[in-house]
C-alpha cells in the first residue's frame, strides 16, 4: 500500500517534478550571485532618509527606491520624458549600472511556478508540490521500513544500483525537498486564496493629507527613523500632486509619509499571517538566505536522478512479475503455489516450479500468498515460496497471509512445503519463511518437506530443492530457473596454475582473456584501449554456463577488468558439472560467461584497515582486493589451506604484495601439517591485534565455505565481547561482509 502511494503519483508526476526541480535549482543560485555583487552596510549605518538624499543628488527624477532581500538597491527614475532603472551603491547613492532583470531568469521563474501556463499552470505547480510532499513522506516511511527502523537510517544501504542510489540520494536530499515542497505548497495555497498571505487587510491610503510645501527628503523624520536594511520599497509622490505622499514598505510594516511634514500619516505593522508568509517565501526562494538557497538547489538536483532511478526500480519490479501461463483455478488444482514477494523476483522461481509441475501432469494454481483461499478442494500439495521484507517482516504480497490462515477450513488441507528466499548477509535470513512454517505447523498443517532456503537467488539451491520435491510426485523434477541474464560473452583461457592435488583439494587459478580480435577494425579497437572485457571488479561474480545445463554457476572474481584479464579460483568438486568442465580447460579453450555485479562485497573506500578472512578457493576475491590496493592502505589477510607444500594458493603473488606493502600482514593456517590449524585458530591467535583494528574502524570481508564463515563469526564474537561489540553490530554498520558458498 505504502509502496503504491509512493510509486503511483511518482510515475504520473515525474516529468513535472523534474522540470520544477531543475528550474528551481537554476533559480536557487540567484540569491547567492546577487549577494556576491552587493555591498551591504552594517545595521544602523545608513537610514532611508540618508540614502534617499544621496540618491536625489544623482537622480533628480527618482520615483521609486527598492531594496532586494539580498541588499541590492534599485532606483527607478524619469529623466527627459523617459524612464530608467539603475542599481546604486547604498553608501554613495551613485549608480553602479543599469538594472536589467535577465529575461532568462524570468522565463525560468515562470517555468518554475506555472510551467509557462499562467493560472492553470500555477494550479499544476501546486499539485506538483503536494505530490512532492507525498513522495517525500512515503519515501521516508518506505526507507525506514526497509532498513528496519529510523535508527538504522544512516547505515550503508543494499540493493541493486538503482535501488541503492534512489535511497542514497533520497536520504541526503529529503530535508531540502521536504522544505521546498511544504513551502511551495503553502505559497500555492496562498496564491489561490486557500490560505491568507496577510495582504488582504492592507493599509488603506490615508484620506486626509495636509497640503504644504514638500520638504527635502533627507529631513523627513519618518524616513530618518528607518534603517536602510529594513527597507523594502519607497515610492515617491507624483511631483505635480501636492496631496500625494510617500508610500513606504519595510520589513516590519507599511505606511505613508507626508511629503511636507515628514510625519507618518498612517502605519500598519505586519501581522503574524503576513510575517509567516514572508518567512515561508524566504525559505522557498532563499532570498536573503543565499546559503539556504544553495542547499535547496543542490537537493533539487537530486530529483532528476531520483526520477530516473525510481522509474528504473519500478520497471525492474514490473518486468520481473511473470505472466503465469495455464494457471488452474484454486479449487480445481492438484497443486497450489503461493508466492510472497516484495520485489517480484520470487515470482520467477514460482513460474519455474509451476511450469515443471505442469509438465509433470499436475494442474497447478499459482497466486500471491495474500490470495490464500479458505480451502483447496482438490489440492494435495501446497508450496509456499516467500522472501522476507526488511527486518523479518512479511513481503507486500504476503502481509495478510497469517491473518487469512486463521480462516482456512479444517478440512481440505493439502500438505505443505515452505521455501524461503533471502540473503544470508541479513540478520533475519528467511525469517518470514520460518514464521510461516511455524504458523502452519502450529495450526496442525501436515508438512510434506522441511523448510528449505535459497540464498541470493541461487539457481543451484533451487535446482537442489527441486530434487527433493520430485519424489512427492514420484518422478524426477528439473527446476531450471534462468535469470533474465544478459547475453553471455566468449572468453578464452590464457593460463592456469594448479594447486592442492596432493591433498585431495584440486584447486586452479584460471585466467581468462577476451577472444583474439578478428579483422583490422577489431584489432584497432583493441589497440586504442578497449581490452574486450566486460566491466567488473574483484568481488563481483562471473556466471559461467556449463554445456548441458541452462543454469549458470557463479564464481567470485579475483581480478578487475582494469587488470586486463578475468581471474577465478575454482576448487574441483567430485560431481561438479561446471568445476569439472573448468578444470578440464586448456589454454586457448573457450567458455561463455556474463558478469553479475556484487557491489556489497568489496572494501569500503577510505583509509580504515581491511581484514580479509578466507579459506581454500575463497582466497580469490581477497587476492584481487590486495592486488588493487595500490594506495597501500592497511590490509590483513587470514587464510586457511591444507598443506603449504601443495595448496598455498597465490603464494608467489602474496610474497610480492607483502614486499611492496600492498599487503600488511599475512596469517596462513594449514590443517594437514603437524599441529595443524584452521583459519579461525589463526584469527583467535591474533585476537588483540584484530580487536585493536576493529576499534580503529576496520572492515572485515569473509570469503569461503558456509562452515568456515560460521566458525569465523563465533571466533570474532568472542574476540569482540570485551569491547561490547559483536558481528551482528558490525553487519548492521556495513563493516562485516560475507561472500559465502556451499
Amino acid at each position, binding site marked *: 500500500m505504502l509502496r503504491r502511494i509512493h510509486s503511483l503519483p511518482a510515475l504520473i508526476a515525474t516529468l513535472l517534478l523534474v522540470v520544477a526541480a531543475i528550474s528551481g535549482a537554476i533559480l536557487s543560485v540567484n540569491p547567492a550571485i546577487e549577494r556576491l555583487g552587493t555591498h551591504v552596510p552594517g545595521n544602523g549605518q545608513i537610514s532611508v532618509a540618508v540614502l534617499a538624499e544621496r540618491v536625489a543628488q544623482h537622480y533628480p527624477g527618482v*520615483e521609486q527606491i527598492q531594496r532586494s532581500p539580498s541588499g541590492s538597491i534599485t532606483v*527607478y527614475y*524619469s529623466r527627459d520624458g523617459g524612464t530608467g*532603472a539603475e542599481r546604486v551603491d547604498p553608501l554613495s547613492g551613485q549608480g553602479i549600472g543599469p538594472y536589467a*532583470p535577465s529575461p532568462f531568469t524570468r522565463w525560468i521563474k515562470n517555468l518554475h511556478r506555472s510551467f509557462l501556463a499562467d493560472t492553470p499552470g500555477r494550479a499544476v505547480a501546486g499539485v506538483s508540490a503536494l505530490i512532492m510532499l507525498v513522495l517525500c513522506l512515503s519515501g521516508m516511511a518506505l526507507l525506514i521500513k526497509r532498513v528496519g527502523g529510523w535508527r538504522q537510517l544512516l547505515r550503508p544501504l543494499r540493493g541493486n544500483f538503482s535501488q541503492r542510489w534512489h535511497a542514497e540520494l533520497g536520504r541526503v536530499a529529503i530535508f531540502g525537498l521536504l522544505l521546498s515542497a511544504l513551502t511551495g505548497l503553502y505559497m500555492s495555497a496562498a496564491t489561490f486564496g486557500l490560505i491568507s498571505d496577510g495582504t488582504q487587510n492592507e493599509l488603506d491610503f490615508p484620506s486626509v493629507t495636509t497640503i504644504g510645501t514638500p520638504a527635502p527628503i533627507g529631513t523627513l523624520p519618518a524616513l530618518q527613523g528607518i534603517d536602510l536594511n529594513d527597507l523594502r520599497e519607497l515610492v515617491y509622490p507624483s511631483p505635480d500632486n501636492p496631496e500625494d505622499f510617500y508610500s513606504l514598505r519595510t520589513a516590519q510594516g507599511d505606511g505613508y509619509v507626508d511629503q511636507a511634514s515628514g510625519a507618518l500619516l498612517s502605519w500598519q505593522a505586519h501581522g503574524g499571517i503576513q510575517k509567516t508568509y514572508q518567512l515561508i517565501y524566504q525559505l522557498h526562494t532563499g532570498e536573503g538566505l543565499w546559503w539556504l538557497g544553495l542547499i535547496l538547489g543542490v537537493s533539487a538536483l537530486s530529483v532528476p536522478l531520483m526520477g530516473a532511478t525510481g522509474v528504473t526500480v519500478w520497471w525492474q519490479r514490473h518486468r520481473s512479475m511473470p505472466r503465469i501461463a495455464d494457471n488452474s483455478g484454486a479449487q480445481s488444482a492438484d497443486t497450489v503455489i503461493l508466492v510472497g514477494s516484495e520485489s517480484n523476483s520470487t515470482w520467477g522461481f514460482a513460474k519455474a516450479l509451476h511450469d515443471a509441475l505442469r509438465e509433470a501432469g499436475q494442474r497447478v494454481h499459482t497466486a500471491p500468498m495474500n490470495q490464500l483461499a479458505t480451502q483447496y478442494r482438490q489440492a494435495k500439495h501446497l508450496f509456499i515460496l516467500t522472501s522476507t521484507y526488511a527486518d523479518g517482516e512479511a513481503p507486500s504480497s504476503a502481509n495478510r497471509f497469517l491473518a487469512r490462515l486463521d480462516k482456512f477450513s479444517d478440512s481440505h488441507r493439502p500438505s505443505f512445503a515452505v521455501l524461503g528466499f533471502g540473503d544470508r548477509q541479513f540478520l533475519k535470513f528467511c525469517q518470514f519463511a520460518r514464521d510461516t512454517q511455524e504458523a502452519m505447523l502450529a495450526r496442525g498443517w501436515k508438512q510434506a518437506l522441511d523448510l528449505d532456503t535459497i540464498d541470493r537467488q541461487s539457481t543451484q539451491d533451487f535446482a537442489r530443492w527441486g530434487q527433493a520435491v520430485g519424489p512427492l510426485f514420484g518422478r524426477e523434477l528439473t527446476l531450471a530457473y534462468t535469470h533474465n541474464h544478459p547475453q553471455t560473452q566468449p572468453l578464452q583461457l590464457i593460463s592456469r596454475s594448479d594447486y592442492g592435488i596432493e591433498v585431495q583439494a584440486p584447486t586452479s587459478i584460471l585466467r581468462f582473456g577476451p577472444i583474439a580480435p578478428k579483422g583490422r577494425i577489431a584489432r584497432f579497437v583493441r589497440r586504442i584501449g578497449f581490452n574486450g572485457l566486460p566491466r567488473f571488479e574483484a568481488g563481483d561474480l562471473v556466471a559461467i554456463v556449463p554445456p548441458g545445463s541452462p543454469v549458470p554457476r557463479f564464481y567470485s572474481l579475483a581480478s578487475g577488468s582494469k587488470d586486463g584479464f578475468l581471474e577465478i579460483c575454482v576448487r574441483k568438486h567430485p560431481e561438479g558439472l561446471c568445476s569439472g568442465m573448468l578444470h578440464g580447460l586448456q589454454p586457448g579453450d573457450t567458455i561463455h560467461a556474463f558478469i553479475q555485479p556484487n557491489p556489497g562485497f568489496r572494501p569500503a573506500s577510505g583509509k580504515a584497515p581491511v581484514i580479509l578472512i578466507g579459506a581454500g578457493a575463497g582466497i580469490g576475491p581477497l587476492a584481487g582486493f590486495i592486488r588493487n590496493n595500490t594506495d597501500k592502505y592497511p590490509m590483513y589477510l587470514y587464510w586457511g589451506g591444507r598443506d603449504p607444500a601443495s595448496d598455498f594458493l597465490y603464494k608467489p603473488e602474496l610474497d610480492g604484495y607483502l614486499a611492496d606493502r600492498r599487503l600488511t600482514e599475512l596469517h596462513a593456517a594449514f590443517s594437514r601439517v603437524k599441529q595443524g590449524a584452521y583459519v579461525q585458530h589463526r584469527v583467535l591467535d591474533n585476537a588483540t591485534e584484530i580487536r585493536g583494528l576493529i576499534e580503529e574502524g576496520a572492515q572485515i570481508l569473509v570469503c569461503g565455505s558456509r562452515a568456515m564463515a560460521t566458525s569465523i563469526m563465533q571466533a570474532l564474537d568472542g574476540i569482540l565481547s570485551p569491547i561490547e561489540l559483536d558481528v551482528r553490530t558490525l553487519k548492521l554498520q556495513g563493516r562485516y561482509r560475507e561472500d559465502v558458498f556451499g
Partner: protein
Amino acid sequence: MNKIVLSLCLAGFIALPGLAQARPVTLTTQLKNYSGDGAYLAIYVTDAAGQYQKTLWVSGKKAKHYKNLRDWARGSGMNRAEYDGVSGASVGSGRALKVTVDLADTLIDAGYEIRMDSAVEDGRDNPADVRTPLTTEGAGKPAAGRGYVQSLTYDM
C-alpha cells in the same frame, strides 16, 4: 449593511451618466517591447486637477497587485464596483489592448483627462504612464506614454 448602501450608491453613480447620454469609446493601447511579464493597466478619467472620476478599463486579474497602479488605486479605492465588468487579463510586452467602453457625454470636452497607470511584476510602477485630454478633437490621435506604454488612442 453600510457596505451594501455604499455599493448601491456607487452603482447608481455609475449608472446615472449612462442613463443621461453615453456613447461607445474604443481605447487602443500599444505597449512597448519591455522586458518583463504581462503589464497591469488601469485606464480612467480624472478632472483637470487629477481627481479620479471613473474607471474605463483595468487589465490584470490579481487584485493584490492593484495597489501598484497607484494613482488609480488611490482614486478608486480599488472598489470592486468601480471596475466590475470593465476588467480583463494583463497585457504582454509589445502587445496591444483594444476595448470598447461606454462613456458619458458629460465627460467629453469638459476639461477631463484620460489617464493610464501601469505596473509590471519585479519592475517599476508608472502612475500616469499616459495623460491625454478627453476631447472630440483628441480622438484618434495617439498619446505617447512614458513607461511601458507606447501609445494610447481613443476613438469615438
